[in-house]
């Protein structure tokens, strides 16, 4: 079992060729007075699907773009497929696929034209027609890129990242702004990439995306990795289950805690929404509803939930993920 929290990674370097796909140590990146990335460590195993999860402005894009060779670290080291992304750019670039958060295509180009062009820059590209069909890009027809919908532009960008059959792909918020159907098409493709042995690093601020897809999740906040592990490992770090309900604001939780088992906790997350954590069993549920009845509270939207990455994030940072 790997460690959930950073700072105690193994000191012995792995044998050559088996090193991680991405190895970031102590990365610092500043823009003027603002520190975007502040001593970040991240290791991505070959063949894994790693989600870099965090709120907007946490440093996800800066980290990924440093790995892609777009930025020089102010401090720390970055190794991608064993190479320095800036100094060894010529050797690295044919081996990686890059999906930028937005743009990257000529305003007047058609989707198939741009994808065919990207394919022509690679030695053994995928079949462009297959990729167009897989990602539903036929619907783009002869429309110029600037007139495509946001979702179509996103899917084209994803296709461009994988068409060269890379060993490693960086996907920067691949499903931002997609409708549910397109989102699932993207997820299916990402899963298949991993299945076929492509290492995938994706950034997201959707916790369900990280939970569903990733072998490994790195939670980033304020330019640092604050936790890393599989979704299961991360979620086990907290309570097994949670119970949520809504009622009027500012209920007297102290009296509720007196009624609950000793290892329970109760917090008012936002005014009028409450979360009880601990060993949530039928007995505890009954205790809570009885307490509500005694206090004249109708426990609206009462629900027992598995501990989610969102809870983990909230506990670690005190912030809402999508704030």
């Amino acid at each position, binding site marked *: 079992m790997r460690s959930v929290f950073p700072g105690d990674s193994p000191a012995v370097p792995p044998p050559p060729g088996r090193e991680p796909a991405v190895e970031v140590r102590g990365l610092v990146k500043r823009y003027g007075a603002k520190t975007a990335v502040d001593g970040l460590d991240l290791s991505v195993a070959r063949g894994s699907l790693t989600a870099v999860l965090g709120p907007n402005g946490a440093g996800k894009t800066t980290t990924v773009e440093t790995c*892609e*060779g*777009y930025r020089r670290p102010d401090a720390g080291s970055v190794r991608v497929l064993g190479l320095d992304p800036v100094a060894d750019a*010529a050797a690295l*670039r*044919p*081996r*990686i696929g*890059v999906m*930028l958060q*937005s*743009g*990257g*295509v*000529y*305003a*007047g*180009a058609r989707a198939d*034209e741009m994808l065919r*062009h*990207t394919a*022509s*820059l*690679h*030695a*053994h590209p*995928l*079949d462009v027609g*297959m990729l167009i*069909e*897989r990602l539903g890009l036929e619907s783009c027809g002869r429309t110029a890129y600037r007139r495509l919908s946001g979702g179509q532009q996103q899917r084209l960008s994803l296709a*461009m990242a*994988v068409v*060269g*059959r*890379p*060993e490693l792909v960086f996907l920067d918020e691949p499903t931002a702004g997609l409708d549910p159907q397109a989102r699932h098409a993207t997820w299916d493709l990402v899963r*298949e*990439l991993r*299945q*076929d*042995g*492509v290492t995938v690093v994706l950034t997201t601020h959707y916790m369900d995306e990280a939970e569903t897809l990733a072998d490994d999740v790195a939670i980033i906040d304020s330019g640092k990795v604050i936790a890393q592990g599989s979704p299961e490992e991360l979620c086990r770090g907290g309570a097994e289950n949670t119970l949520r309900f809504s009622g009027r604001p500012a209920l007297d939780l102290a009296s509720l805690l007196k009624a609950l088992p000793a290892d329970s906790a109760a917090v008012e997350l936002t005014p009028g929404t409450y979360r009880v954590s601990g060993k949530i069993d039928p007995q505890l549920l009954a205790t809570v509803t009885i307490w509500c009845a005694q206090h004249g509270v109708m426990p609206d939207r009462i629900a027992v939930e598995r501990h989610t990455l969102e809870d983990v994030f909230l506990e670690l940072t005190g912030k809402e993920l999508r704030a």
Partner: protein
Amino acid sequence: MSADAGTSTNTGTFTPKPGAAPLGRMIRAQAALETRMLLRNGEQLLLTVVIPTLLLVLFSSVDIVDTGEGKAVDFLAPGILALAVLSTAFTGQAIATGFERRYGVLKRLGASPLPRWGLMTAKTCSVLVTEVLQIALLTVIAFALGWSPHGNPFAVVLLLVLGTAAFSGLGLLMAGTLKAEATLAAANLVFLLLLVGGGVIVSLDKFPAAARSVLDLLPISALSGGLRDVLQHGAGMPWADLGVLAAWAVLGLGAAARFFRWE
């Protein structure tokens, strides 16, 4: 390559097999794409084809500007050829590259196997192809209007190539340092100013001597003047004009290489 990837789950469709295409193929593909983008863009065609053609036809057939002794077309055709180079190598390239930078095209290509110098080579090829098409069209029209050119074709080619280098450097400098909107405005403004003050359709003799000594040093004046000396007057190598163009080429390309920002 599996054709049934859409239906089967474990076909190995995406099994990594990375590699760059041969350099020559990448540059050819990039140059072809850039040329297609340019020829598909209405504003670019207005600038590179419609305006030079209109000016050539209009001023050759209607006596509006003073074209000096001889046939109007013999004076105008060299100036319009210079304008064609200006419109493609400078204005068109600056605007297109400015927006490519703005929309992350240059950034995305920067992560592709195509090296940056390969991209710049492709851009140059695309500019040259466009110029060949422009010059072919304008030459046919000029002949139809009764043009009788003189001089050494080699000198003409040398002028056009050095002019292209000078204007490309300046255009890329602008595209790589200013915002896309600023580049759009400035490149059009410069086009208009150089059209009027660069000996393209208005002889520089019309300007006061003080202004003229400055205007003579502009790359457009050197190009239009050099082409006119050779094509209208049958002069030999226009060394002074070639020198001015070479100096601008070195300055412009040097500054562009130094200051160009890719995103």
